[in-house]
């Protein structure tokens, strides 16, 4: 899976799972401030990422994710790409 595919899938997940406005989603957007996702929402997103991409994201690594782009980076890393 290439970066564009991961970004696209990530955007779909943010819209479908967390109900975020598609227009607000940029790679530089922060979950907490820009997208107003609460801490539980970030956990839900990570669970959705695990289920959708078939990867496993340990809590210590999840804690470091602040922006959409960082989440994409982590997924790509876990996919082995």
């Amino acid at each position, binding site marked *: 899976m290439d970066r564009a595919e991961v970004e696209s899938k990530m955007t779909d997940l943010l819209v479908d799972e967390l109900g975020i406005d598609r227009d607000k989603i940029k790679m530089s957007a922060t979950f907490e401030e820009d997208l107003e996702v*609460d801490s*539980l929402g970030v*956990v*839900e997103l990570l*669970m959705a990422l695990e289920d959708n991409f078939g990867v496993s994201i340990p809590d210590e690594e999840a804690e470091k994710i602040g922006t959409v782009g960082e989440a994409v980076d982590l997924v790509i890393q876990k996919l082995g790409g």
Partner: protein
Amino acid sequence: MPGRVALVTGGSRGIGRAIAERLATDGFRVALNYRTRRDAADAAVAAITAAGGEAVAVAGDVGDASAVAAMFASVEGSLGPVAVLINNAGITADDLLLRMKPEDWDAVIQTNLSSAYLTTKAALRGMLKARWGRIISITSVAGITGNPGQANYAAAKAGLIGFTKSVAKEVGSRGITVNAVAPGFIETELTDALGEGMRDAVLPSISVGRFGTPAEIASAVGYLASDDAAYITGQVLVVDGGLAF
């Protein structure tokens, strides 16, 4: 559409069995967990099935992390994600604190309280996805008033109350309610072991003048598990015949 899935820990006997029976009657597909009493679990499943309900027995020590993970995988694989979790499994190992052995303290805390951390964490995943869930823990009046000889049991049961309120605040926005039911003295194997002297000493303090039945606890749980109770969360429903107030 198949009914929602309910998992009752310690569901083979006593209060747990009554809860499993009540939830099955209410249309839930019930997984009842047991640790060693396979015979009791099978009998409970048979009774539920004979009455027209749906139930399966699933083994596992709820105080053990890998057993809990295996149990959830098994239930999700056969019935589907858990929508209603009843943290009912509990043991006693009574003694005055000064004589209480470390293993008796640890076992009661692990089986009665830490188990709730393990099972609830596992169940929340599916409940968050479904945006619907019910987590009901069986605490005890002992956890509210204390009881000589039961510092470990009372500590674990009181711990379930703090746990209930905290988790309720975390997940309420996702349609998941988290409550506790606090039974008083209920006619089960656990209280049969109390002895006549204790019984006679306690009865005068119970306003309705008798011990309760497991079905009466199951009724409270059944209500909290229903859609009717969607606006109730973080609460402890005391079902003790008017003892601890």
